[in-house]
């Protein structure tokens, strides 16, 4: 993880960014089968840091909570060995579901617009506009039985 300046009013510290990447990877790990990165991937994390400004305090609280839950072990959450990280993450979700929900919300917003992830879903990595999409008109004969109904709105 680089120490580049983050475009946020209140950037996270290096340690906080390591913890954020670690919990993101537990939430959505990389998968070779689908050819997708984990949510702790650097490009995805950089996007995440750009949008967390509005929920900055909740993120800080979440990362602080993770460190507190890790304090009996080696130190910071990111420094734990994987089984310990997974166990702390589970306790975090049970104890602070509200903070976990904020993390999930922000992570999903950036993960599911990543080029590599969209490509794995056979989605073009582009904005909807201006090309738009195709939607089939459909089989309008489905409407035939409804057309056959008498008007049934209530007369007044």
């Amino acid at each position, binding site marked *: 993880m680089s120490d580049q300046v983050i475009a946020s009013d209140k950037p996270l510290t290096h340690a906080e960014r390591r913890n954020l990447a670690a919990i993101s990877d537990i939430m959505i790990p990389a998968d070779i089968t689908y050819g997708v990165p984990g949510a702790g991937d650097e490009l995805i994390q950089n996007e995440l840091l750009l*949008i967390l400004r509005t929920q900055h305090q909740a993120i800080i609280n979440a990362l602080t909570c993770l460190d507190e839950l890790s304090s009996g072990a080696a130190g910071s959450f990111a420094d734990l060995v994987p089984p310990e990280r997974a166990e702390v993450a589970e306790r975090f979700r049970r104890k602070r579901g509200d903070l976990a929900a904020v993390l999930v919300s922000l992570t999903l*917003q950036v993960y599911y617009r990543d080029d590599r992830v969209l490509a794995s879903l056979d989605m073009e990595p582009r904005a909807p506009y201006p090309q738009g999409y195709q939607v*089939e008109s459909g089989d309008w004969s489905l409407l035939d039985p409804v057309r056959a109904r008498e008007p049934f709105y209530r007369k*007044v």
Partner: protein
Amino acid sequence: MAEDVVDVLIIGAGASAAALAFSLAETKMRIVCLEQGGWMKPSDYPSNSRDWESRQFSDFSISPNRRGRVTDYPINDDASPIKVANFNGVGGGTILYAGHYPRFHPSDFRVRSCDGIGEDWPIDYSTLAPFYAENDRMTGVSGLAGDPAYPPKEPVMPPLPLGKSGQRLAAGFNNLGWHWWPSDSAIATQAYDGRDKCINLGACVSGCAQGAKASSDITYWPHAIRAGVEVRTHCRVSEITVDKNDMATGAVYFDEHGQQHHQRAEVVVLACNGVGTPRILLNSVSSRFPDGLANSSGLVGKNLMFHPYASIQGIFDDELDGYAGPGNCIWSQEFYETDEARGYQRGFTFEITRGRGPVMTAFNGMFSGRIPWGADHHAAYRRLFNRITGMVGICEDLPEEHNTVTLDDTLTDTHGIPAPKITYELSDNSRQMLSFAVARGTEVLKAAGAIDVFSEAPIRVGGWHLMGTARMGKDPQRSVVNEWGRSHDVRNLFVCDGSVFVTSAGVNPTCTIQALALYIADAMKQRLANLFD
């Protein structure tokens, strides 16, 4: 400008204001509209960029409290299970609406006569019918004639595509013998009045970059402005002023620099929606009107109606429309009218919501427990992606005086104007109706082949429709404005937004709000010589 007197001062530039201004413009009166927001640029809409779903959680959120634009005002809706959704800018709520555009039914204007509850409107369907038709033309409504759930009407262009999702659910409705029909939509399926046709961006509810969705900034307003109406943006009204004869003299507002002005006017029209309008009336306190302006009935801010919504979504084995296409598709009014055997009065419309994008799919999956954290995340996600479709049940809400908009004791906007406070309880009738809607929605989804169904009722963030807080009627003791929108108490003050609704019907209100605004404008034009008598 401070001593300038205009003929008509319209407060708010949303759906109703646009229609009213357009209609009044032919009189050549001097008409000025004050709008607290600005003009939207299609190039700013989220569908221009890769983060189009993410921005629905920030600057294009439907919640003013979450959106927090400088053009927004805060709303204390802590005491409501349904949170307010709106947008402040030219076009108002139509900037973010889905474009569902159903009319009311004849029975919706006769709720007390039909069912012994609620109230009757002072007007009926036939009164509004010509204005519905004019509004359909101005808006450019797509749909299909022949719906047996309605009196005859003629949409101006062909319906939106069924797509895979619509066909799936249509088959489900057919399997049960239930009504369905292509939705009347304020979305152009052909080039229309300078707007281009829908290209299935799938992001209608965060603004249409294509301009196919009929937000009123691109339908009525260009016509009204060409006819001479002036729109002043970033002007937030705090109160309406009156003279010793109980006539409105204009409005006090703050411009974009925070400077306070008084705009004088011969006629004042409120068009700020069912929350913004009572807010201004209640804030317009004087010795003559100590309980707020136009409030001799005590009903300003009371009888707030939302539409409680049920969301019922199904997961299917095969690929559906997913992120492509407008949310609007087909609807069902099988359960629209009262059937007391169902355990509640009145009814609802099912509106099929087509699909969702990759982020919202993940949201639905993770927050419903269908997509886990960890190694199984990806496989579970792929069982949902492009495989969800379903519907909302939009339930008629009944007027109850304890559901209110008042002024918050401490919360204010950036100009120090008291913010609105919402106090709202879901009625037993609504609860019963929501439960019934979830059960029937589940039934039709399974009949369509869904392998799993999930629901939410009421939709917590779904307070899109704000109605009833300055209702119309012939009795000044039981209503705020008369049968053509004029205040009973202040004879040159009008209200033309959803506040005047007497009941809410079980359909989206925008089509009726705009038809009512055209009707009120027409009533004003018919009475210009004796408007204040």
